[in-house]
Each structure stands twice: as C-alpha cells, then as structure tokens.
C-alpha cells in the first residue's frame, strides 16, 4: 500500500496540518518509505493473537470524590492563547459564507 497525492491531502486534513506543496511531496515520499518497511509485519501470521494495547493490565481506577482546591480561573486563563472577560477567545467556528 502507498499514499497517493489525493491521500496526502486527506491526511493533512485529518491531522489538521497546513503544509506547503514541496513539503507535502517530501513527506509523502518519507511516509511511503516508512510504510514499505512496515509491510514486514503485515506478512506475519497473527491469526488468533489478541491485541496488546497497554503493557500492564489495568482496569478502571476509582478514587474518592473529595473536593480540593484546583487552579483558580485566573491561573488557568493565564495559560490561554487568547482570553477575554474570563473566557477563552477563539476564531469563529461557523462559516457564514
């Protein structure tokens, strides 16, 4: 399998990355080279093998719901990219065109 030019455009949208034409081409070549290397595991027989997503078995972890002092609104918003009157401020999300 390899990634086409069209596939690359789809991938850029999925990954939310704006890239120039030159870099898009270079990355497409890189990714296809890396994918070719990954082919080795696709040939491996894994019939009946269970996926291992986490190295150590763990289950839902619960704790008592105890009220504690967290960050104040001011402390949290000090990290904001843009804030106004106690709110995060972001670019418009709905296209009005």
């Amino acid at each position, binding site marked *: *399998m390899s*990634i086409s030019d069209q596939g690359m455009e*789809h*991938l*850029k949208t*999925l*990954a*939310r*990355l*704006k*890239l120039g034409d030159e*870099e898009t081409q270079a*990355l497409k070549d*890189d*990714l296809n*080279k*890396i*994918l070719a*290397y*990954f082919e*080795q*595991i*696709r040939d*491996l027989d*894994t019939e009946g*093998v*269970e*996926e*291992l*997503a*986490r*190295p*150590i078995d*763990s289950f839902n*972890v619960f*704790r008592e719901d105890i009220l504690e002092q967290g*960050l104040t609104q001011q*402390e*949290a918003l*000090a*990290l*904001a*990219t*843009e804030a106004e009157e106690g709110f*995060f401020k*972001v*670019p*418009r*999300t709905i*296209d009005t065109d």
Partner: protein
Amino acid sequence: MLLDMKFAYQIAEEVRAQTTSAEAVVQTALARAGVVQQNLNAFVTIATEEALKWARALDARIRAGEDVGVLAGVPVVVKDNICTKDIRATAGSKILSEFVPPYSATVVQRLEQAGAIVIAKANLDEFGMGGSNENSAFGPTLNPWDSSRVPGGSSGGSAVAVATGVAPLALGTDTGGSVRQPAGFNGIIGFKPTYGRLSRYGVIAFASSLDQVGVLCRSSRDLALAMDVMAGHDAMDATSLATDKPMFGAALKQATDLRGLRIGLISELSEQGNSPGVLAALKRTVDKLTTLGASVGEVSLPHAPYGIASYYLVATAEASSNLARYDGMIYSERSGDNGLGQLEVMMRSRGEGFGPEVRRRVLMGSYALSAGYYDAYYGKALKVRRLIANDFARAFENFDLLMTPTSPGTAYPLGEKSADPLSMYLDDVDTVLANLVGLGAISVPAGKAENELPCGVQFSAPVLQDERLVKLTAVLEAHDGEAFAPLAPL
C-alpha cells in the same frame, strides 16, 4: 577553575552536615551549566534565580535544625517536557515556546520534597520524538565527547548535563529508548523503570502506553536514592501502580556478587547489525558478568526484529491523538489572523508550530488510525506487540535478566541521519522492546567503542523487578570503576 560535581549522595551528606551549603553547590552547578550551555546547547532554560532562591531557603531550614531530606541541596536537571511550576516547559517545541506550567510534575515535587533543587530544563527532541536532539526548536545539543556528533536523544540535554557534571541526577522520559540511548552515547547510566512505577502527572504526553519517566546519573547509589524518593503510587496518574513499594536502597545493600544470576543474551540483537566496537564492548561485559558469578546464555526472541515496526505504528498513532490538543485554540501558540476562521487558524498553528519530525509522525499516526487502514496497521502492530510480550515471558522462564547492546553503534555526526528518518528509527531496535512490553530496562556504561566514544549495554528485567537492575549495576560499578562515571571533558 570549575569545581567538579560530586555524586548526589555525597552532596546530600555534606549539605546536611553543613560542611557545605546548598547555595554553594548550586552556584557550582550553575557555573558549569553556563559553560555547557555555551559549548553544547544542552538547556532550554537555566533557572538561575529560582534555583538560588530554593537553595537559600533550604540552607535556612537546615540551619534551623530541620531535616530537609535525603537529596538535600542536590542539583537536578529536568527534561523540558516535564512540568516545573513557574519555569517554562517547552517540550522543545515552538508551539509551547511560551508555556509556563502552573504546577510541577509529581516526580519533580517528590524530588523537591526530598531537598533536591531544579537548576535547569534540558534540551530535547521535540515532544521526545527523535534519537539525536536535532529535532529541537531550540537548536541541537552537541555530544561532550565529540562536539561534531549528536548526544543521542530524545533526553540528550539531560544526558549531557550528567556526563559533564553539571548535575549528578537528571530526569528524562523514555518512550522507545530516549533515556537509555543518550545514556549510552554519553557514558552514563540511564534507567527506565517498569511502566507505572513513576508518575506521569505533569509529563507532556507523547505515546501514553509507552511513555515512562527515567533517571540519568553516574552512580547506582544516586539512582537508588532518586528512585526510592520518586516511585510509589500517585493518585493523579491513573496508570500509576497502586501497590508499588520501591526497594532500591535495600537492593543495593545486597549487591555483592552475581552468583546464581542467569542472564540471557538476546541472540537476534547481539550479533549482526551492531558495530564491531559495540560487539567488543558487549563481549567484555559478558566476560565480566561471568567472572562475577553470573551465568550468561543465549536466548531467542523470534519477534524482536519486528519491534521497530510495531513500535513506530503504536507510538505515532498515540502521538497523533495526544498532540491533537495543540491547536492554538485554548492554549499553545496561534498562527494566523482570527478572521481566517477556526479550521484555517488551527491548521496554520499546527503546521508552523510543530517541527518537521513531529509533522511527519502526526501524519504517520493519523494514517495508521484512519478508516480502512486501522486493522492493517495499528491493529496489526498491537498483535505483534502481544507476540513480543509472549517472547519475553518465555525467555524469563529461564533467565532473571535479558541483555543486548543499548544501541547498534556509537554517537554519529550531526546531520548524518536527519535526511533519512527510517535509518534513525532503526537505531532504536534494542530499546523499543522494553516500552512495548512495559518492562524496566537500564543502560550501563560498557567502556569505549568506535572513535573512542562511549557505549552502553542494556539489561531488562521482568515487570516490577527493576531492583534487580539496580543491584546488577551496583556490582558492575564496584568491579569496573573505569567504565563507570568518567566525566566528559568540558
């Protein structure tokens, strides 16, 4: 004339006995850090004011008769993807270049509660993605043994700080070898504990089923001190093991010889593919282990060669998900005018805020998880991961520890592998396995290999048997002072 940095246990003894002060120790560390920064670019931030303030406060408490802890006055360097309250944490990325965390990671809090003092934030490959420190938005770190070469990565700055004696202890993170490989390239100890032993609260995530905090140092005693202080359950991290009781100091006390210890040399990784110098160092270590009473035999892990493919699929898939939060909206740097609309601003912020390797991995991971490819790539990688775990379980039926080189070669010239990402990935062949399976693993110094550069050997232990690794390191250290702890030239 710069004073040499002592080991952590020595510093703590002297500071507690008031034969020296924390302030004097920190001054020495900061002076060395300045030189190392100028020559090797090992740091993103040197926290001069904060460190001196902490040191003076600590000295005042000691003078007042207070017991300030087993790491009293010990300077530590912390990788810049680990949060430190009020000191910026960039993860080596432009997108976090202004991020000043409002809290410290649990591991940092615990070190500080034991009297340690954070003096600097170490340079790294962006978000921990890389093995050479060339992928930092703050420029590459250089190798202290040969400044035309890479220091390894991604915890390259942490390794350089310890190898040059800026601090006896440094924190790194290890997702696929990022503590062990730079430790090998710098001639020091690099330890990645079992998954879940060190809290990741306050650690900037790369791949959550693989990430672990690790320790870089020059002495097994310092390692045991740091681990006993940091390990143990943390309610703030759901993956922190609930019943963990760190026993590193106790393990050290039993470190006399290696009689009865069965060590398996992984045959798939210990022959072809390694440089002659690395193989010679491996052989020297095997001989030494045998002399000390251990038995060393070969063991086959048939799926070990598939580790790289499995690892890079899992790691990039998880990274593409973890890094989705950096979009220039709520926090992180924003590119482009708000009038362009959210999607465009988001795509610009990420396109400009992430460096080339991070962009490459986010795309790779998005592909591996995307509709139609999930089963063929990500799902398949998880099955191979299971086969690798099964290989380890079988090997540990007959052996107490497993052994490989830490890396197939020594530190390489800057730029040599940056044009070919796959060639850099292949260097992680020895180290990724411990992360896939969640095992504890350590790189210990094994003397010099090609070009008079240091190299390491790696040992891994069954889950939660990390103390065995520290004990083994202590015995090797006691019988091979020369390979251990040489300070790199400044």
